[in-house]
């Protein structure tokens, strides 16, 4: 499994991925990390631990809220939920990201 250094993830990408994941519904931290892993298998690799500071940042911005609940296995877990402003932010960031990737693709194809 090729291990990419954290720095190779574009800044803000992890947050965007988390927001995207949370559109599925309220999830606890491990479920989020699993989902991101599945989505980006072998391309975007981050230490799972860095998910939590990212969640903290998202909560500071008010895009995500959290509360404790019970997991299907009966354990206590903190569930994260995307807020309305989080959804709006995701929309904006996705389109911005799309524009950038589009631009990069064009440059790369021309080269």
């Amino acid at each position: 499994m090729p291990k990419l250094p954290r720095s190779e993830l574009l800044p803000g990408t992890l947050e965007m991925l988390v927001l995207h994941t949370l559109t599925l519904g309220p999830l606890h931290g491990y479920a989020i990390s699993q989902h991101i892993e599945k989505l980006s298998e072998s391309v975007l690799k981050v230490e799972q631990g860095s998910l939590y500071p990212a969640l903290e940042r998202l909560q500071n911005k008010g895009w995500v809220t959290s509360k404790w609940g019970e997991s299907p296995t009966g354990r206590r877990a903190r569930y994260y939920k995307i807020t309305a402003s989080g959804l709006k932010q995701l929309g904006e960031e996705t389109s911005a990201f799309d524009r950038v990737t589009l631009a990069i693709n064009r440059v790369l194809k021309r080269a």
Partner: protein
Amino acid sequence: MSVIDGLRHRVRVWLDRDAYDREMDEEVRHHLALDAAQHVGPDGRSASEAELIARRRFGNRTFHKEERRRVAGLAMFDGAALDARHLTRWLRRSPGFAALAILTIALGIGVTTAVVSIADHVLVRSLPFGDTDRLMMMVELDGHGGFRTPSAPTAEDWRQDAGTAQAFDGVTYVRGDGVTLRVGDEAETVGDGFVSPEFFPLLKTRPLLGRTLLPDDQRADAPLVAVITHRLWQRRFGGDRAILGRSISIDSIPTTVVGVMPPGAVYPPFADVWQPITKFKHQDILLRRGFHADSRTLARLRAGVDSARAMAFMQPVARRLAQDYPADQAKWMPALFPVRNEIIGNIRPMLLTLAAGAAAVLLLACANVAGLLLARVTARSRELAVRGALGASRGRVVRQLLTESLILSALGGVLGTALAAFGVKVVAKLMGDRLPRVEELVVDQRVLLVAASVTLLTALLCGVWPALRATRHRSSEVLRASASGAVGLRRDSRLRRMLVTVQFALALMLLVGAGLLMQSFRRAAAVDVGFDPRGVLTFRVAPPSGAYAQPGEAAALYDRLMVATRAVPGVVDAAFINHAPFGRAAITTSVEVEGRPMLDSSNQVFYRTVSGNYLDTMHMALAGGRWFDDADLRSQTGSFVINQAMAKLYWPGTNAIGQRITVRRASQARADFGKPMSGTVVGVVRDVHQQRQDVVPDPEVYVPYTTETWPWGMLVVRTRDGVRSSPALLRAIKAVDPRLVATGDPGTASFTGIEDTIAKSLAPRRFSMTLISAFAACALLLAGIGMYGVVAYGIAQRTREIGVRKALGATDGLIVRQLLRETAWVVVGGVVLGCGGAWAAGRLIRGLLFDTQLTDPGTFVLTIGLLGAAALGATLLPARRATRLDPTIAMRGE
């Protein structure tokens, strides 16, 4: 609303930090457990192997947790706890430094606060009237130094003038008189202010008890009422609240007390009782245009009008009066004097000087703390560099240093405030009898607030700057530098030296100021008052009203009093005068010199009627001619004696003796008031200081008491035993006539003797001298501490160097000499800078000096000597450590 959601999250986290910490751990444990469960089993991995994989996938737990806490804003709190830990460790390691820093701040804040509190109390807060700054005493000036109070008719013309009304909220005339107050068997003479209905509203002061005088009290058929001062209430009635409605005897007339004014509310300064002006005995005086004595005219400036504008408003009425009454008013223009200045003197120079002193002391303290912290930072540059290299951010290091200085300032501030409170208490105890309303003297809220801001400012000044400096150096440089043993960054040590130089300069300025004030005080106290005050007691003696009304009767009474008191054991001599020196009362008369055109009524000289042996009793000296002889006293030969000031004013360069002059009778209570008396100057006496030692004596004329006999007066008794003779003397006075009222010193009515009164007359001078001296002593101590700090740290920094030099054969003497040389340069710099500063600041203090030049060499020599001694001590103390250094240990270094 995302911002609010985010904030809510942060606040929730902050409010329950410990719980959030635990929850974070729980979340991570949950995560790891779930992940480990994914990896266990299928490939035959054991639970522990699976756990290892989960941990690896998770990454550095500590790192991620720290990052998360940082994002959540929790790291801040760790930092504070860490800072506190660092701080306590650091304080424990160098208690001497902490003590010096805290002491410095405490001194700076404590002394400044105490002095400002006291000055504020004495100079501002003890003013009893509302908005005192707008209260003005109205006087008349002739433009040639002549000064008089307006007569009652003039004051009334002003009051009714439309122009004047635009300048003032009100104008009121107060007539003063001495009245006999009898309570039970005891009688005394007190000052009585006869006032109009506008008087009390103009003062803007509410009575402490009862009421002030009302317009109805002025009616002819109104019952006799009086308002009394707080001091009279305390002294005569023991502060009894049942005083209201009580009947007292004023000039043998039953009068009801209707009010007591609050402490300090005394105006005019001579008044102890106020009565309606319609009840004044000599109503005819109120109609005389030319009568200017014993009164005050008070006015309150309208808001937004200053003295100059008020004077402009008064020009028309002044011109009109000059035309209508040329003899009395032609040369005189109205002028205003702040009542504040009359109560406590002109305090502006003193306030400015004190403010400058306070600022200087505070600056000194700050420089000291900055120097100490800077030295400390330099000494710790290695530690800070190591911490920087280990990952502490610049902000983190700056914050630690800031925390240190803030905590030092807080401790210093608390100690300083305590010091201020203690200082104020001590001053109140020591100077209790010399300060007004001392029972109200406390460190008040406002001053505390000032102290608090000063503390904070000190922290910022002393903390930020060294902290910023400390973090400017790159860690690697410092680490390399310290490896070679040359940590003492040159620039820093030069900077510290500069700081101490400035401190010495400030200390020099304050010491010079204190020295000049002390010199002035010494010179003022040493001024020859023109007579020998030792053992002289004065008694104000007033016959009961109605008795001894004829001048001849009164003169005979005074003769009997002098004979009776001379017979008392321990009495050397006794004499009589209308107003004795250093009493508060005096009166002037106009003078005409024969053969010269009468100038105008500005030719005023002080007027004394005296008994024949007054000169001998007082041990005064003749400057020329002779004193009154028996013939002068017996047959009214028309002889006058004048003082040197008068001789110099009227006959400069020529002999005054034999000149003919005309003066006017000045006793208001006599029918012949104002009647001219012509005669010859037969003698000139040396000047006698009548009010204060530091004020040049005014021109005076002496008249035999048989020529004009005052209706009451001062019995002046020279004794061998001083105050102890006063009971026997009082008995002797009563033995002459039991109805006589004899009182002691003006104002206090105690018998302390004229010598004590003279000493008290210098109280304002003593006050400013004492406060500035407190500043100066504090400054000297602070500068010494600063020097000590610099030298001690210099030695600590150069331990290796000194060790090497000692190993190479340098003697202790040589090393100490080098340290002293460095100190000497700082002192020289400070002296040069300080002399320049003292010269520049001289303007401030000039008004407070007496017979002392700003460049008084003695003061400068003494000051520089003191500073030199302080610097020497501050160098030699730590220098001993350098000489005790063992070279082998020193060279082994850190």
